[in-house]
């Protein structure tokens, strides 16, 4: 019965995916070729070989459409093309391009269907294909979900290969040789007599012939860049102060601005007194913007000061004022009426719980800000004919469309200058920081205006990770975990975020249970139910959304059950997992750490955790020690499986960074609310990890799987549970609420 219901629920979802995808648009619309957007921007004698490669007499430009928010994807995109094109990626101009359907993200859409990645049945495949078709038709150019590499790795290598063979054909036509007689090396076609014809000399010839397509890709053994330690394309600029982030844009005659919006998001502006602000030095304008006021001045500091000098009376928003009230809403939200999904329902959970002594627990995760180190900003030049925007965004197509609408201009009158972000962690999936900057620029047509948020405004108006609550029940028998029942309760990130940038899609919100329903355990009686709580503060995607909280609940409660069963934490997880890749990462982390159980002697302890997130199984072991000053994290070992590792140096950085991100926030970070607004609005009260807290880490990526997945988020999910389990091993105290600093002091 449970299974029939699950299938019925999923079938409904497939309907949604298919409507969003191919079916509603018709087969022709879905299959129709997407034109090459670069043909519109090149001149006479210049070649746009695929949507990713431009060759002119002056040089080579690679289009790298996924946004670099620190994860190194600019560099990897360039290396994927360069491997086949036979160029030095550091010699090319790298350009994110303008948003276009050619750069849509199929993988992100396909990941949105409510099936675990390892589930490859017919219905799952159809659902993914439908969602991917929808992304193609709607031109969803998103950077997120750790999908950039999974989505583009073949397309970019193929673009490089097709462009290379087309350049060879152009050289063949010019010399009278055949293409198979020619080689390529370092940006040139090489003739049999070793004469070099630089690609740049072949631009006009290549532009005049048809693109050669479907060129076979090189085998990994032939790679000279991929899979090898290479230099990121942005390392030098980021080590010399030369990188231009959004906040660093400097244009002639530019003015500087800031905004102050209602700290109660969505509340009204009841009254404004800007008399003092208008009289301040350098202030050019104090004007209303959506949700608050904006100040334009001749430098950012004066704009900040003037904005603070405006007296505003804010109206209350329509959500509870305090964290305590919000927790009460969540505690009461696990009702039948709010039941939103039951995507895991194996065995007979109710029977198993009725027959055994039940272990039960409640787990909690708090609101968390993204708090990227670069405060949000956008620079805008408006004229009645055109709109130019300099900023960093993960959703350029959405931004272009909304900006055009706001400015009353056609979409093609909007030019985006897409820049590296000084961090994002999901924050730049929203565009709320750009729209008021457009409003301000429209006050002074013809003059560029850079709008920068203060740190306090940035954090007050974050769209945080939601508070998340889990009710857990379970049972053990004969030394084994026999039943696991989890209710996850949270406001919907999908409704809130999609509602802001597009429209809230129909169907259950899988993020409420992501990182729980999709864990590949073969527990005989195993159920995960999602409850959609009423909206509280508007929320957003925070590194590994959904899973960043649920994997903590799921793995730590599993650890509780394993302890109750008297089993070894690593051995019992291995016994319960049939998924081969997941077994391998658990075995690997056991070997790396020399696992021989959670006890390390007086005052020390060891925790193992496992999480499946974004298609990547991750296992981690953490060692902690009690010191006079509190718990100290000594060491961590992390093993993961993402398939082919294209850039091993950066892959290690992503795993390390996302794991430490998970540790730091689990230890000591939260947003609490008073008067409808977060109390923590700067780094004096919200830090994440600091250097002195950073343990020694070792990372191993197995690289054996035949699929490719991304690494920006998954390791986040193993951090909190590994730490919680280690603290239990060292102290006997089970921490069920993040941040752990509520129940434990850290050194």
């Amino acid at each position: 019965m449970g299974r029939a219901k699950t299938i019925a629920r999923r079938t409904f979802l497939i309907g949604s995916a298919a409507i969003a995808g191919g079916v509603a648009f018709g087969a022709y619309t879905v299959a129709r070729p997407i034109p090459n957007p670069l043909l519109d921007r090149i001149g006479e004698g210049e070649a746009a070989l695929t949507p990713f490669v431009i060759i002119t007499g002056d040089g080579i430009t690679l289009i790298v459409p996924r946004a670099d928010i620190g994860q190194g994807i600019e560099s990897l995109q360039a290396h994927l093309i360069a491997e086949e094109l036979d160029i030095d990626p550091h010699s090319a101009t790298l350009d994110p391009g303008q948003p276009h359907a050619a750069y849509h993200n199929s993988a992100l859409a396909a990941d949105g269907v409510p099936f675990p990645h390892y589930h490859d049945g017919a219905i799952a495949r159809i659902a993914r294909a439908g969602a991917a078709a929808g992304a193609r038709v709607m031109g969803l150019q998103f950077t997120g979900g750790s999908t950039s590499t999974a989505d583009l790795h073949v397309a970019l290598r193929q673009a490089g290969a097709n462009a290379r063979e087309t350049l060879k054909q152009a050289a063949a036509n010019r010399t009278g040789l055949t293409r198979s007689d020619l080689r390529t090396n370092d940006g040139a076609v090489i003739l049999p007599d070793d004469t070099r014809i630089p690609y740049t000399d072949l631009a006009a010839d290549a532009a005049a012939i048809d693109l050669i397509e479907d060129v076979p890709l090189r085998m990994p053994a032939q790679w000279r860049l991929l899979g090898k330690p290479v230099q990121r394309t942005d390392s030098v600029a980021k080590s010399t102060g030369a990188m231009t982030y959004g906040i660093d844009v400097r244009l002639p005659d530019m003015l500087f601005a800031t905004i102050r919006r209602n700290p109660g998001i969505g509340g009204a502006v009841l009254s404004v007194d800007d008399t003092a602000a208008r009289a301040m030095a350098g202030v050019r304008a104090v004007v209303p913007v959506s949700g608050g006021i904006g100040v334009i001045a001749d430098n950012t500091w004066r704009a900040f000061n003037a904005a603070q000098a405006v007296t505003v009376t804010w109206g209350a928003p329509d959500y509870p004022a305090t964290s305590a009230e919000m927790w009460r809403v969540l505690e009461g939200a696990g009702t039948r009426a709010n039941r939103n999904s039951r995507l895991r329902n194996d065995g007979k959970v109710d029977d198993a719980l009725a027959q055994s002594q039940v272990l039960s627990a409640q787990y909690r995760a708090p609101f968390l800000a993204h708090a990227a180190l670069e405060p949000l900003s956008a620079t805008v030049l408006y004229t009645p004919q055109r709109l130019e925007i300099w900023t960093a965004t993960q959703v350029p197509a959405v931004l272009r469309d909304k900006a055009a609408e706001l400015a009353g201009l056609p979409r093609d009158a909007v030019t985006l200058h897409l820049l590296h972000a000084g961090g994002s962690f999901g924050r730049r999936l929203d565009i709320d920081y750009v729209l008021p900057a457009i409003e301000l620029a429209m006050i002074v047509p013809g003059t560029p205006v850079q709008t920068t948020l203060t740190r306090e405004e940035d954090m007050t108006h974050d769209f945080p990770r939601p508070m998340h609550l889990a009710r857990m029940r379970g049972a053990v028998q004969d030394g084994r975990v026999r039943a696991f029942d989890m209710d996850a309760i949270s406001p919907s990130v999908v409704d809130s975020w999609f509602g802001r940038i597009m429209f809230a899609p129909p169907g259950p919100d899988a993020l409420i249970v992501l990182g729980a329903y999709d864990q590949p355990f073969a527990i005989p009686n195993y159920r995960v139910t999602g409850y959609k709580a009423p909206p509280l503060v508007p929320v957003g995607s925070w590194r590994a959304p959904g899973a960043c909280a649920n994997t903590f609940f799921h793995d730590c409660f599993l650890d509780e059950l394993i302890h109750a069963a008297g089993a070894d934490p690593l051995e019992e997880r291995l016994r319960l997992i049939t998924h081969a890749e997941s077994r391998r990462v658990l075995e690997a982390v056991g070997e790396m750490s020399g696992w021989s159980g959670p006890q390390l002697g007086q005052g020390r302890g060891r925790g193992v955790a496992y999480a499946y997130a974004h298609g990547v199984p991750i296992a981690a072991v953490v060692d902690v020690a009690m010191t006079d000053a509190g718990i100290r994290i000594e060491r961590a070992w992390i093993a993961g499986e993402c398939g082919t590792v294209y850039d091993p140096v950066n892959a290690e950085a992503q795993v390390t960074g996302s794991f430490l991100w998970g540790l730091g926030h689990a230890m000591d970070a939260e947003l609490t609310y008073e008067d409808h607004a977060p109390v923590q609005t700067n780094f004096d009260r919200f830090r994440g990890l600091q250097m002195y807290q950073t343990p020694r880490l070792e990372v191993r990526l197995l690289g054996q799987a035949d699929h490719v997945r991304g690494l920006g988020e998954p390791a986040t999910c193993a951090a909190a549970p590994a730490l919680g389990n280690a603290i239990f091993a060292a102290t006997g105290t089970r921490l069920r609420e993040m941040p752990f600093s509520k129940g434990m002091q850290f050194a």
Partner: protein
Amino acid sequence: MQLQVNGTTHYLDVEGDMPLLWVLRDVLNITGPKYGCGIAQCGACTVHVGGEAVRSCQLPVSDVWGDVTTIEGLAAGGTLHPVQAAWIAHQVAQCGYCQSGQIMQAIDLLARNPAPSDADIDDAMSGNLCRCATYPRIRAAIHDAAATMQEG
């Protein structure tokens, strides 16, 4: 008001209480030092004044007591500072936004302590936040730079 930055003398007409950070960024267009918090809690704005690392977001320009060096002033003459070279070799940067401040802080540390231990590095660097958590590579790069500078 006169301000010496990276070897160039600037004549300024600004309020004395304007923080050095904003003078550099918005008046002189020297954007390597970053705005992160405005309250000396993140270290992204770190520059050297008279050879000492300071948080420029909390230093009124009228209180600047010596020559100012920013990240842009390190590689004068086209040669990277050994700390910068180590940062590149270790590929420390992820988003990179904090790294100007990290590098300026690390150079200050090595000037006072040419062979720092991990604990010395933790003490000196823990006020510089890196939200990407590049801390393990920062440690490794500082050790490497220390070795290079001692050889040199």
